[in-house]
């Protein structure tokens, strides 16, 4: 059992720089939690506070119900995998993995058993006698993970562990880490700025910005029900389209912007009634905009628009269109068979059932 709880945790450097503001969340046993956000958002600081590498300025950190604020890192029963791996350069792979156990005075045969078992899990048995400098990036990564595994800690902390790997290796390590999580049944806190890593591995994502937690939820919730424009824009690639709009009443509710007029589906009307004639931000993901030629249910004049094609980016499996409608700019991910040409008009269809509406002032999600 390992449950990590943060209650109103603050980190303030030198009395003025607020790196983490009032963070409250719970990480349940065996959960894979990802702290996600752009650089400087406080996610690493949060992780380091859990590790005990940073002092907690205010608030409480509990692991398994016990307050850990003043417990030394080594006594927290936590292991951490660092971004640059931080392998001891003068030790062999074996000694790197055994170091923590030796310091904890484990018997020799137990150390040996654990190191070999971890090496087997990670497929680095042949590397045990090598020094870190003789390893490739991916191998170092595995050793760093192995060093954490042998300790069999309550909680694993990962600080952007994949960011130094090339794209191909990253994809591979992603699925391996996921498998490892199932196998070890461990509690994992994982920091990254990469939304794909977060979406693919996490049970729960905590999105942070400027030291403040923006949203906590499952990948599904974060993607489909973003709490505000920041989360909506941060998750998903290409990013969600935001269009400054007004909600108007004209035989039902409509989204009206400089270049678009779209009918709001019935099921949302009740929620949006109080915003009639008010400025809002209309959000729609690029993958929910279709080339009319390939669309399922175009309803002329209700969920369609005629727009100008600015740039066409064919990616093979899909094509990205940069579109202009009045003063509005849109990005759409469409079927690769599209006949859209730059500088030409094209009809597009919006899937209004997955639209988002955000408050213009606060950026908070209304819908």
């Amino acid at each position, binding site marked *: 059992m390992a449950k990590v709880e943060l209650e109103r945790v603050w980190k303030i450097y030198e009395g003025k720089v607020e790196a983490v503001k009032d963070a409250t969340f719970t990480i349940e046993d065996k959960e894979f939690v990802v702290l996600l956000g752009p650089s400087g958002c406080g996610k690493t600081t949060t992780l380091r506070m859990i590790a*005990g*590498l940073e*002092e907690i300025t205010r608030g409480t950190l509990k692991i398994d119900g016990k307050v850990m604020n*003043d417990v*030394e*890192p080594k006594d927290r029963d936590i292991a951490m995998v660092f971004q640059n791996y931080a392998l001891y350069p003068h030790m062999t792979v074996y000694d790197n993995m055994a170091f923590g156990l030796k310091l904890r005075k484990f018997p020799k045969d137990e150390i040996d058993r654990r190191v070999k078992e971890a090496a087997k899990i990670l497929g680095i048995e042949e590397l045990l006698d090598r020094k870190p400098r003789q390893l490739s990036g991916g191998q170092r990564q595995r050793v760093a993970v192995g060093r954490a595994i042998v300790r069999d800690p309550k909680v694993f902390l990962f600080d952007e562990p994949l960011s130094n790997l090339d794209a191909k290796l990253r994809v591979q390590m992603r699925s391996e880490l996921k498998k490892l999580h199932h196998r070890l049944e461990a509690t994992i806190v994982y920091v990254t700025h990469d939304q794909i890593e977060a979406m693919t591995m996490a049970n729960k994502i905590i999105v942070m910005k400027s030291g403040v937690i923006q949203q906590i939820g499952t990948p599904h919730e974060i993607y489909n029900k973003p709490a505000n424009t920041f989360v909506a824009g941060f998750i998903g690639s290409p990013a969600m389209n935001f269009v400054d709009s007004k909600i108007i009443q004209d035989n039902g509710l409509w989204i009206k912007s400089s270049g678009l007029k779209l009918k709001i589906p019935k099921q949302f009307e009740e929620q949006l009634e109080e915003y009639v004639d008010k400025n809002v931000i209309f959000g729609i993901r690029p993958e929910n905009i279709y080339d009319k030629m390939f669309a399922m249910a175009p309803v002329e004049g209700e969920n369609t628009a005629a727009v100008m094609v600015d740039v066409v980016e064919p990616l093979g499996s899909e094509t990205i269109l940069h579109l202009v409608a009045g003063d509005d700019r849109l990005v759409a991910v469409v079927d690769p068979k599209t006949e859209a040409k730059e500088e030409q008009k094209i009809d597009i269809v919006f899937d209004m059932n997955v639209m988002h509406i955000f408050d213009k002032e606060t950026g908070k999600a209304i819908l």
Partner: protein
Amino acid sequence: MRKKNLVIGISVVAPSIIAIAIFVYGFITWTLRVSFSNWNSFSALLRGEYKFVGLRNYIRLFQDTRFQTDLWNTLFFTLFFLFGTIALGIIMAILVDKGLKGSRLFQNLFLFPMAISFVVTGTVWSWIFAPGNLPNNPQGLNLLFQKLGLDNLMWGWYTSTDSLGHFNLALIPVIIAAVWQLSGYTMAMYLAGLRGIPNDIIEAAKVDGASEWKIFWRVKMPLLTPITLSALIILGHISLKIFDLVFAMTGSGPNFVTDVPAIYMFELTFRSNRYAMGSAIAIIMLLFVAIVIVPYLFSSMRGEKR
């Protein structure tokens, strides 16, 4: 880092901090106190009564013609030494940096004087510059000049009492020896700087059509300004406190032509027991050095933070 490590860390460096506090700052304060006292004889020291005499020792010093000579000597020595060392250091660096065959050998040769004691340097150069009995029994370089038929180049070197204004010509051999010792060091600084200049900047300049000469003066030198500044400060502070070299090479010389404050301080304190006067010189030397070093230290520390 965590509090416990903070406590351990600070207690680990505490002895060093305390040692420096006592051996540097405590002792400087002590010297300062002595410089304001009447401890100008052994018996005064033995009696141990401290009598505050204000700036009397300093005033006496500045009225003292020997000390005035010392200040002029320091000024001219520093100027020519800095100029010579930096100029030669840059030239060495340029030549070595061309990377011709054997460059490494030359580089090591130019640097080797740095491994040698000033005392050794002084001893050897004093033998080279010893004038001998002119004009008939010349020695050292004079002998070489005579053999080459350059008799009119023979002169008294560090024994000469000639001067140009306040510049005692006897300092020339000392400057030559000092430049000999430290130009290699300056070269090493410039080489490190030159090798730190990213190649693409040089290539960009080449593509822009700059000649090698232009690249050096317009691209490299401006980038090396911090090195020049460091060199000026490091060499400058060495020159302001120069002692061993002069002591071993020439001593004070006739009419104190090669005297420097450090030698005068040494003689006052350890030969004539005039501790207060010696301390006053030491404090003046410290002030000179501090003026050069303190801003440099603080700017380096601040530069690091960024």
